[in-house]
């Protein structure tokens, strides 16, 4: 009898384990609506977002909002795994390049239209260029994000450089080398290997228009590639940038390099949406415009949404999710609570409210305006593909470690890009 009870208990336990999630789902359906929202960021983003969710819940008591948030590392991998497993959140914050990458693999995101959202609040070209896939609007841009060039005015002055210098490709070398000459442990640029790739893309964009065009073709010639690599070789030779052996450890995290934190590096390529975090407690940082060569085909300065909010196409509560998105994007209360947690808002009303409340810092406004004024053509989806970026990065790593000459690097990058593009 006793043994029988034990066996019965184990069977029930096993069945319970099997159907545990099913029971939870049933309970969910019977109760109030639960909306899950996922995003990445730091505390400056988490806190206001959670506050906005709380306020929305107070006004809509039947809607329970659950936040799934964390840092950038691993967010995309988790998101894709959740989408594949059918467990992704109802509302998801994504990076702009992912919109095409994921939409091309299936009908992952819900299509939005003017009957659901007041699209007049957004710049039509911005929506068209960055938030549509196959002509369908798939998400809403949280804010306007642009590249910015940060300089440490004190370190420049201390190195004998005019901190108000207007930067050109030439004087980055002729003036920039003074930083390292003055003190051998200081450098003009804080660029890590991944940031050198961004600089390379800017240079090639100005020379040739793009690295990879919208027709899935490498857009620069071997000569143009050689010219770009020859230029960046001077960055290493003249001590503009620290050797890769010192910076590769901070791949994708230049802001964690103690030399940047401690004011030993005088400039940084950055995104406006990240610059607050990247500057941290550093003083004397100002924004400048990027160098542009005479006759440039494209400035190479990127402008795109800070992030995009999309709605899960398999969500059972799409209408409620859209309602909450409207709260975040066009409701004065939602806008005020979120502030600049995701950059300068991309809606007319958002910018108006934050400007009235003096929420937009002078530096953010200046960097954004300068970036918009300089912004070039958007990069093709192929250039933003993860494998294409990795292909470029691998060659730049070899070049930066001195394993390839400029001409070898150019030839290898074109060859490898062609191979990668053929398999996409």
């Amino acid at each position, binding site marked *: 009898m006793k043994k029988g009870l034990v066996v019965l208990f*184990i069977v029930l336990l096993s069945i319970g384990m099997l159907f545990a999630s099913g029971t939870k789902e049933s309970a969910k359906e019977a109760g109030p609506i639960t909306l899950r929202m996922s995003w990445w960021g730091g505390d400056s983003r988490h806190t206001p977002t959670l506050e906005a969710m709380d306020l929305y819940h107070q006004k809509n008591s039947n809607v329970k909002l659950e936040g799934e948030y964390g840092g950038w590392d691993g967010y995309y991998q988790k998101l894709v795994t959740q*989408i594949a497993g059918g467990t992704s959140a109802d509302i998801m914050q994504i990076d702009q390049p992912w919109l095409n990458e994921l939409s091309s693999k299936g009908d992952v995101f819900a299509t939005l239209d003017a009957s659901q959202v007041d699209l007049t609040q957004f710049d039509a070209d911005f929506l068209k260029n960055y938030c549509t896939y196959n002509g369908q609007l798939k998400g809403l841009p949280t804010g306007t994000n642009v590249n910015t060039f940060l300089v440490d005015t004190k370190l420049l002055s201390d190195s004998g450089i005019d901190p108000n210098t207007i930067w050109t490709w030439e004087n980055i070398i002729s003036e920039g080398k003074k930083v390292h000459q003055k003190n051998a442990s200081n450098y003009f640029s804080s660029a890590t290997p991944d940031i050198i790739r961004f600089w390379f893309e800017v240079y090639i964009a100005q020379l040739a228009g793009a690295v990879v065009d919208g027709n899935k073709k490498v857009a620069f010639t071997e000569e143009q590639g050689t010219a770009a690599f020859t230029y960046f070789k001077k960055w290493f030779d003249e001590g503009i940038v620290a050797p890769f052996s*010192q910076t590769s450890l901070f791949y994708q995290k230049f802001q964690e390099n103690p030399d940047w934190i401690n004011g030993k590096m005088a400039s940084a390529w950055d995104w406006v949406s990240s610059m607050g975090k990247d500057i941290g407690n550093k003083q004397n940082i100002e924004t400048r415009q990027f160098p542009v060569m005479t006759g440039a085909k494209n400035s190479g300065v990127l402008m795109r949404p800070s992030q995009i909010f999309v709605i899960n196409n398999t969500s059972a509560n799409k209408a409620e999710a859209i309602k909450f998105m409207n709260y975040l994007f066009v409701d004065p209360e939602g806008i005020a609570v979120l502030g600049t947690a995701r950059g300068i808002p991309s809606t007319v009303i958002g910018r108006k409210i934050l400007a009235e409340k003096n929420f937009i810092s002078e530096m953010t406004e200046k960097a954004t305006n300068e970036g918009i004024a300089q912004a070039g053509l958007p990069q093709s989806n192929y250039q933003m593909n993860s494998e294409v970026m990795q292909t470029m990065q691998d060659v730049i790593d070899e070049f930066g470690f001195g394993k390839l000459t400029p001409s070898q690097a150019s030839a290898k990058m074109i060859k490898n890009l062609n191979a990668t593009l053929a398999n996409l």
Partner: protein
Amino acid sequence: MLKHKKYSFEGYLYILPWLLGFLLLQFVPLINSFWYSFTDFQLLGDAKFIGLQNYKKMFVSDPTFLKSLSVTFYYVLIAVPCKIAFALVIALILNQRIRGINFFRTLYYIPSILGGSVAISVLWKYLFMNQGIINNLLSVVGIPGQDWLGNPNLALGTISLVTVWQFGSSMLLFLAGLKQIPECLYEAARIDGAGKMKIFWKITLPELSPIVLFNLIMQMINAFQEFTPAFVITQGGPLKSTYLYGLMLYDQGFKFFKMGYSSALSWILFAIILFFTSLTFKSSQSWVHYGDTL
């Protein structure tokens, strides 16, 4: 006979919770990954059968496969023998009858409790970075600092140290093994005039050889699958010098979403581990001594 069958049935019921977990969370994904390795599955969307193309790609058109494989072999060759040797040396020291020995046994086991976690990897990064504690300590004694993690020739060795540092579990097994060696063997050897080194080579090591075998196999399997330090500390760099197989597998599956190719890579890794494990077992016949054969 009937009674025996009844008990067998009950046995399966007792292990049912584990069995279900194993079948659903391990066995089914295992079979799935085998199937996916013959497809172009990209995580989202359908999987299309492409025969042996994924396996062909590895050996014909993916240079990172051979690079990653060679890095992994180097890593196994560095980390496994060093860890076992280090664990053995510490076990021999901690086997002495000295005051407060239990405190030291606990102390040396702590790194293993911490495990190969992300936190430890981050700690390692800050210890060995250019401006890190190691270089600062070296500069105090006048030795110039090194790019421990930035120099392609040093990075793999540096991240191997994370594994070697976590020698606690191997050490405990050696310690347990040392306790099992009959004291009479040592007494007899000493009476016959054997020195300490001779006793170690002729008695201690042969008596411990089954434990060496166990540690070797377990550590080898773990080392082939290593992921965390390469992912957290160096992200496979510099110049892919720490691009371990586990990291490549992850990149293909979760960065490029080539889940079919990633599955094929994991089956090749399985075959490699199976081969070296079998080889080690086979070779053990000539160097492992069990008590009755000494």
